[in-house]
């Protein structure tokens, strides 16, 4: 499934569309970025409530497919700019992390 397809099917809001044609290879939910970069598999979605520019840097370094922000949190300006510059798709969910993961699982398994 592509990031754009997940966004539509799950009803997420598109924050940054660049790179949303990437295939999703898995899901990793965590706010501790050192854990993310060390353990998230390539092409994973990162589900998080972290919004600083380092989130995008980690997504670039670890070759993640996209970032899904939960609970309606907003990226700061520097992070949004970096996401666009580096083609990192960012989606937004109003739900908490657990419910967001359940929704992603439901969409990807349907």
């Amino acid at each position, binding site marked *: 499934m592509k990031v754009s397809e997940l966004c539509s099917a799950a009803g997420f809001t598109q924050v940054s569309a660049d790179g949303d044609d990437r295939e999703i290879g898995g899901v990793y939910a965590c706010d501790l*970025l050192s854990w993310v970069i060390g353990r998230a598999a390539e092409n994973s979605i990162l589900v998080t409530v972290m919004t600083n520019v380092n989130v995008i840097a980690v997504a670039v370094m670890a070759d993640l497919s996209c970032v899904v922000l939960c609970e309606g949190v907003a990226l700061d300006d520097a992070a949004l700019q970096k996401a666009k510059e580096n083609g990192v798709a960012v989606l937004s969910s109003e739900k908490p992390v657990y419910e967001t993961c359940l929704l992603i699982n439901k969409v990807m398994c349907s």
Partner: protein
Amino acid sequence: MSTALNMHYIVDGSDFTTAGEASTAVKMSLKKLGIAPDIVRKVAIAMYEAEINMVIHAGGGEADVMLESDKITIRLIDHGKGIPDVDLAMKEGYSTAPDTVRSLGFGAGMGLPNIKKYSDEMYIDTEVGKGTTVTIIINLH
């Protein structure tokens, strides 16, 4: 073996939010050169963690990346406070990072273990009060 390509970067230690610029540039360069994606990913992750460490603990420094026909060597040199106990610093979960860094998602004591995990060889040369040189080698084959 002769060096095919050298890249040199100054790592600015004054702004944590811009940390990773050297790693980003190296990743893009290696991709353009056609290096295998799994190798590029290993280089990017290992170098990013080392760069972050350099900014957190040493106020920045310099990074050199040497691309040869069989390996990529990344050397990060800082003149910070050094590491008093390298074995302890290598343990997952051990960290001396300040709370400000933790609030940004780092300082979990995973930096050095992550570098080791994603490198084929890793060397730390450190002296308290003088600085640290971290050398990362990633084989191309």
